[in-house]
């Protein structure tokens, strides 16, 4: 995966065939069940129940929007010669991709039982989640680095 910041602020991503396959496989894992996170811990908010409902609805809408973006993303991939592909991301789409990859990481982590430390031994049940987490981390780190580049 190679990334380049374009002059108009968009991000160009060049991937090879196997990376596209991996990304497609990862995107199939989205959306992952979200962690229930309360809007507040110590209360003190009027109509807290309603505010919590609004938050959950907002997060659901965001996930639906993200699903649309990622399904479009790989479809719009431009073939660059043999087995090379080019994706152009607008700044908002870069943030979407970042959130999606992070949600996949967190979903896989939750599926592993939310371990505090990395698992050292894998079996047929845990291996797919560990791989998903590791692969999403690689793409996420690459994307983060590209976004931080001036």
């Amino acid at each position, binding site marked *: 995966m190679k990334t380049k910041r374009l002059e108009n602020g968009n991000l160009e991503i060049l991937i090879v065939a196997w990376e596209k396959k991996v990304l497609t496989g990862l995107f199939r894992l989205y959306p992952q069940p*979200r*962690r229930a*996170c*309360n*809007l*507040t*811990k*110590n*209360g*003190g*908010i009027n109509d807290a129940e309603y*505010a919590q409902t609004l*938050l959950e609805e*907002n*997060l659901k809408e*965001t996930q639906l929007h993200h699903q649309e973006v990622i399904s479009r993303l790989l479809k719009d991939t431009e073939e660059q010669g043999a087995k090379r592909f080019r994706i152009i991301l607008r700044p908002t789409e870069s*943030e979407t991709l*970042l*959130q999606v990859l*992070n*949600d996949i*990481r*967190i979903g896989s*982590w939750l599926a592993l039982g*939310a371990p*505090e430390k990395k698992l050292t031994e894998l079996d047929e049940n845990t291996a797919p989640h560990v791989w998903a987490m590791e692969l999403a*981390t690689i793409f*996420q*780190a690459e994307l*983060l680095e590209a*976004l*931080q580049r001036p």
Partner: protein
Amino acid sequence: MTQTASPEVRPGTVQDQDTDSKTDLDPGYLVVCWNDPVNLMDYVTHVFQVVFGWDRQKAERHMLQVHEQGKSILTRDSMEKAEHYVHELQKYSLTATLERPE
């Protein structure tokens, strides 16, 4: 445009710049980010930069505070704004909450 007369300030006294009575009456709401064992440090820094428009240094300072002290108070604002920030942070899957100052 109308002009207002400048308040008279006696020599040797310091004028109170904080004239926003709303601030005195309403303590506002705190936006707190809590530590978790899964989000990457660089990711958290990036999210703070995007959501609050902070420079990398400030974002990193708060990220480290979350990491080392378990939480960081990111900002204090009106209910509406604080709620907006919490929504944005939770969209990035950070554990962020809205709290009344104690």
